């Protein structure tokens, strides 16, 4: 449904998007993940034909964004970061205007406006001025505007930013309920959101693609192997045979690999990799103590999604 190849967008002074390629299947929800300024919005703007790429191609619903922008525009619904709303309009009036812009007319227009108002739960504020709406409602009116013409592809730029927790859950449910008929690409810098909603995740940082995988694959890649740091010293400061410790630790069920990391003041630190799910830490402790050594530290090194994200994007952990 969406096919991006070698997409690059260069501004006067910097490269916003640098040679990105990815594909999205029909009916999928794809999370576009990256820190602020990574190039998410720029990529989305290229997909929606708002900006032309410097080089590379983007194909949406079978049409090239440069060659046939009109065909792309007809099939795309776009919610920019700040919902594009006219404060002087009433909600229903605005949705009708948006529907007309997208080419709806007559009965179909009235019907679609009614449907999306209910879908996005803005029907009850239909005759209110947009200027008087709260942030949450504005976001939902923005979403309603994006889906009013029932587009094949939905591009949502940070659809849940600035909402309260209840509204976030509501918006997530709404987006998920749309996924069957629509191919959705949404950007966010919140990892849980991707985990909660998306099937596929694309991570970009500083304009470069750093990961493109299914969410299950990525999380298992991140969480599958659990690493534990074990620090051992001999009783009463007596010297310790590291090979023996390694042997002993390897015998614990679920342990895959033991590596000696460093030795400091007679303390030996090992990194133990194990299969997820087994409670290896208790077993490791028992093994060390029963062998008559002192266990000075036992710490899980298992990377969280945040860690991996930071690792992939190369950002410094604060």
């Amino acid at each position, binding site marked *: 449904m969406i096919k991006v190849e070698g997409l690059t967008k260069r*501004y*006067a002074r910097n490269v916003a998007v640098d040679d990105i390629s990815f594909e999205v299947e029909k009916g999928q929800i794809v999370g576009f993940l990256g820190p602020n300024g990574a190039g998410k919005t720029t990529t989305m703007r290229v997909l*929606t*034909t*708002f*900006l*032309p790429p410097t080089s590379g191609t983007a194909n949406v619903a079978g049409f090239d964004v440069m060659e046939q922008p*009109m065909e792309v*525009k*007809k099939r*795309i619904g*776009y919610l*920019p*970061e*700040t*919902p*594009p*709303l*006219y*404060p*002087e*309009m009433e909600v229903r009036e605005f949705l009708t*205007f*948006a529907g*007309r*812009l*997208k*080419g709806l007319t007559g009965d179909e227009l009235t019907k679609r406006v009614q449907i999306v108002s209910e879908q996005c739960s803005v029907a009850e504020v239909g005759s209110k001025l947009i200027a008087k709406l709260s942030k949450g409602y504005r976001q939902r009116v923005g979403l309603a*505007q994006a889906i009013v013409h029932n587009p094949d592809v939905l591009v949502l730029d940070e659809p849940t930013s600035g909402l309260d927790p209840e509204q976030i859950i509501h918006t997530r449910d709404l987006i998920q309920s749309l996924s069957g008929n629509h191919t959705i690409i949404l950007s966010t810098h919140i990892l849980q959101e991707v985990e909660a909603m998306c099937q596929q995740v694309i991570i970009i940082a500083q304009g470069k693609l750093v990961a493109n995988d299914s969410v299950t694959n990525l999380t298992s890649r991140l969480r599958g192997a659990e690493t534990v740091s074990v620090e051992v010293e001999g009783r009463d400061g007596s010297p310790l045979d590291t090979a023996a410790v390694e042997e002993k630790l390897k015998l614990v069920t679920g342990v895959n690999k033991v590596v000696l990391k460093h030795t400091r003041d007679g303390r030996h630190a090992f990194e133990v990799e194990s299969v997820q799910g087994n409670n290896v830490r208790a077993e490791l402790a028992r093994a060390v103590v029963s062998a008559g050594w002192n266990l000075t530290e036992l710490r899980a090194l298992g990377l969280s999604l945040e860690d991996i994200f930071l690792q992939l994007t190369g950002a410094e952990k604060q």
Partner: protein
Amino acid sequence: MKNVLIIARKELNSYFVSPIAYGLMLFFSLLAGFFFCSATMMFVQRGMESQMMGRSFPMSVNEWVVRPVLSNVSVIGLFLIPMITMRLFAEEKRTGTYELLATSPIRDMEIILGKWFAALVMYACILALTLLNISILFAYGKPDLKPMLVGFLGLLLQGGALLAVGTFISNTTRSQIVAGVATFAICLMLWVLDWVSAFGTSTWAKVISYCSVLNHFEPFSKGLIDTKDVIFYLSMIFLGLFLTARSMESIRWRA
């Protein structure tokens, strides 16, 4: 065409739900009313004077009232136009609704024409207020209708030309104030250019004074349609809208 009307309708709506339309109408009707009033008084006074002196000669209402009023109105227009066009694009860019328009299946030219057309209708609505003044003349005299219609056509053409320039300027900035001030400066300049011709008869002076919008309005106020002037205004409208289209495209490539 349908899309042009969708945009135009939305623009007109936003003029009339905000105080802009009414403010401009008030401002205009006060000034136009004042000019009409003083022109009529002048006419009546002159008429009485000539009668008292016993050598009454025919005085035309068109010549004495309609023409000066239309000329004055065309100058007031220079002040109204920046206020009509300043928000057209600047506001959309500031609030981000520009992205909605730019990603909807609608051509740039349709957006531009829609906005310009709405501005022209707004301007025509304001001008229509002078009709109230002038219709009083019909109650007491027999002014000639045709020159008046020609005068209004001229006002619309002149307005259309300046509105097209204003539309372009509004497209180049996100700030309504900047758009308004710049448009006003240009309107003023196009008016003042005429004065240059008073000081020189060189080719340059002629070229410069040719560019003056008010110069080209002069024949219309007399009831004359000169192709030269019509073409001047039409080409200015075309230039303004063409530049707006270029500007919209350049935004896309730059930002």
